[in-house]
């Protein structure tokens, strides 16, 4: 048996060795064939992907479920539901109750794509799952929303009972993200994520002489001024931003072309501008090269970190900047905010109803209460410093002098957000954004650190992206 196995193994080895030998001449002949095959397939794939969406009149939603399954990647939505949804009772960390319906939370962190992997498998098995195991509601982020929205796995909100009138007050961009290629709205969000430049007041006072938003805004009004200020900050021992990746989203949100155009990876001029600016700043020691969310990045949340500014939306401030740690800058109200060089958004969470849900009206009610009910949304702003997806409520809050943010040392940052949210344009989103953004920042790190030329780093980027999305070319 063993000898037979070994001989089989050896013959396989021999055959493959032969094929490797042929390798030199073969690829030249085969490569074009493969290309045409790929081209021939692409349209076929497209129609295959669209076909179910086009014929997707048969949404299966019903209302007799006893278990509401919610898939998400952190505690944020859960705490919103617990604190603000009328009638939600918490049972334990992963269970709750609304009326006589049990709520089951499946919380899988986003790290290493774990959340999406889990969601993919569950959605693919949705049709055959037992009624109590079917996903009813899941959350997505803007970076990959299209991956789910443009498939028959997500049900249009109108099918659930959320009408156009209900969502009229929501910001248009939040609807653009979750509108599929047939123009159907398939999700809603309770938050808007316009970003601002969050600056360290102490550093502003020391270097710029004042810490009010106008002075700082003048020092960061465009990217040239931003870089000049960075030089001043470096002289005073401050890093302008914790890492080069901080400013990435500001550039990538203001692109004029998509990451993927006609199946080929495309580098927008504004992305290249980010690379050039960041390279100069890293070389001059004005910023670092750590990854976002790393310890080196979050060191700047504390005074010893010596970082002048971060780019971020409301949730970064209230969820991530260590406001609950007494020694952090946030706890002392040491951050200020101004508009920054360009408008941008970061993140945002959308609620989607899964096709096959058996709690349609409950899902619809959660959507309505959290994303359409102005009273609850105002409550969220006050309690959680979130920026909610309701135009008139936000306009009213922005004008309200009595509202102020603790982390911002008592100012009302909402007018800035309200101004920023109008400039957000999400027409350049693709379902490849997440992979492209991640791989690009990783690859450019090597360029910034001098381990590679721009072209070499670009090659690594292409390699990384095509590993994730084998259908793309470059």
């Amino acid at each position, binding site marked *: 048996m063993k000898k037979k196995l070994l001989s089989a193994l050896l013959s396989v080895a021999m055959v493959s060795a032969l094929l490797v030998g042929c390798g030199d001449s073969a690829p030249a002949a085969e490569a074009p064939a493969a290309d045409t095959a790929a081209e021939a397939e692409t349209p076929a794939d497209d129609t295959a992907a669209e076909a179910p969406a086009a014929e997707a009149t048969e949404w299966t939603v019903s209302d007799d479920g006893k278990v509401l399954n919610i898939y998400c990647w952190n505690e944020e939505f859960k705490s919103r539901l617990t604190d603000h949804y009328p009638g939600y009772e918490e049972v334990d960390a992963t269970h709750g109750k609304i009326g006589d319906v049990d709520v089951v939370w499946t919380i899988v962190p986003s790290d290493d794509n774990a959340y999406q992997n889990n969601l*993919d498998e569950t959605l693919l098995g949705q049709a055959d799952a037992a009624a109590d195991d079917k996903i009813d509601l899941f959350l997505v982020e803007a970076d990959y929303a299209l991956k789910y929205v443009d498939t028959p796995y997500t049900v249009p909100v109108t099918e659930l009972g959320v009408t156009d009138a209900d969502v009229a007050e929501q910001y248009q961009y939040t609807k653009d993200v979750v509108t599929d290629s047939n123009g159907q709205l398939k999700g809603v969000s309770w938050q808007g994520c316009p970003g601002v430049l969050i600056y360290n007041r102490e550093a502003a006072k020391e270097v710029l002489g004042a810490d009010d938003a106008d002075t700082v805004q003048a020092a960061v009004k465009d990217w040239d001024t931003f870089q000049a200020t960075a030089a001043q900050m470096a002289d005073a021992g401050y890093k302008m931003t914790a890492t080069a990746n901080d400013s990435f989203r500001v550039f990538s949100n203001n692109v004029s072309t998509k990451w993927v155009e006609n199946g080929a990876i495309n580098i927008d001029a504004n992305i290249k501008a980010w690379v050039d600016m960041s390279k100069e700043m890293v070389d001059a020691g004005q910023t670092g090269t750590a990854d976002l969310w790393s310890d080196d990045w979050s060191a700047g949340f504390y005074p010893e970190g010596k970082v002048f500014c971060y780019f971020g939306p409301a949730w970064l401030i209230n969820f991530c900047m260590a406001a609950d740690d007494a020694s952090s800058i946030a706890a002392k109200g040491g951050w200020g905010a101004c508009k920054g060089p360009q408008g941008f958004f970061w993140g945002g969470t959308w609620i989607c109803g899964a096709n096959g849900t058996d709690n349609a009206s409950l899902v619809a009610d959660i959507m309505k209460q959290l994303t359409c009910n102005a009273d609850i949304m105002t409550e969220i702003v006050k309690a959680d410093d979130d920026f909610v997806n309701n135009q008139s409520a936000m306009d009213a809050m922005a004008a309200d002098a009595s509202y102020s943010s603790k982390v911002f040392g008592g100012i009302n940052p909402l007018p800035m957000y309200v101004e920023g949210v109008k400039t957000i344009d999400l027409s350049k989103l693709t379902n490849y954004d997440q992979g492209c953004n991640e791989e690009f920042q990783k690859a450019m790190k090597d360029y910034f650190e001098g381990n590679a030329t721009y072209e070499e780093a670009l090659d690594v980027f292409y390699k990384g992206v095509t590993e994730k999305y084998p259908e793309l070319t470059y």
Partner: protein
Amino acid sequence: MAKAKKSQVVKYNKWGYIFLIPFVLVYLIFQLIPLFTTIYNSFFENYRQGIVQVGPNFVGFQNFVTIFTNGDIPTYFSNTMIMWILGFVPQILISLLLGAWFSDTRLRLKCASFFKTVIYMPNLIMASAFAMLFFTLFSDIGPVNSLMIQMGLISQPYKFLSHTISARGLVAFMNCLMWFGNTTILLMAGMLGIDSALFEAAQVDGATSTQVFFKITLPLLRPILLYVLITSLIGGLQMFDVPQILTNGDGSPMRTSMTLIMYLNKHLYSKNFGLAGALSVFLFIITGILSLIVFKFTTQEEK
């Protein structure tokens, strides 16, 4: 009588087969079937585009051609080998020295079994936990950097994971640290198996301990050394957890510390079973050849 005896033997044989069932079942389900499906899968284009499945479409040897011609296999194979050699050379030297000391009766080492336990300890830690520890120790603002800055050795933090030499060096160092105890135990067993009369004869003839080591111990240790070498090589080819965790799966900088299995893992994102299968088959062939060498060698010794 004879007939009864024979059936008795058959009865005993039956028990042998019954006891084998669990192993065979587990082997079939978790090893042999996946092995063949992997080979089968390697001939198909089969991945997921977002949440939409592409394939499986039969593409012949296209996947193999792809991984060889785009330079991935040669690059990651050499990365893996470089890191393995960097770790293995010091590992075998230290193990030989320790093994010689522990097995030398003239030295009369005290607490030998205590030290044997201690040097084996690093192997008991999970590789990922070990890598996480090193990741924290050697990060840009980690304790190693702050120590060196305070001692005045460097003025700026040294980015260990942004330089090819230090990144590969760290991986090699960790592998060495984790496995030298295991190798020491193996070599020591080999050394203790050598007839002590040979050592005594050498002593009587006035050989120095260096001569004893190079002229007697090493030549007689060759089979064990070869075994250690090959098993370590196979382990080295499958190097994954340490560099994966240390570099966050990127094989940074510029993928110079990316190993074959890390590359394999990259294809999980798109569920690309075709390319991943081709890579696995390649690894299987290499490992198979190496195992064959061990097999040949050990059976020859028995003759």
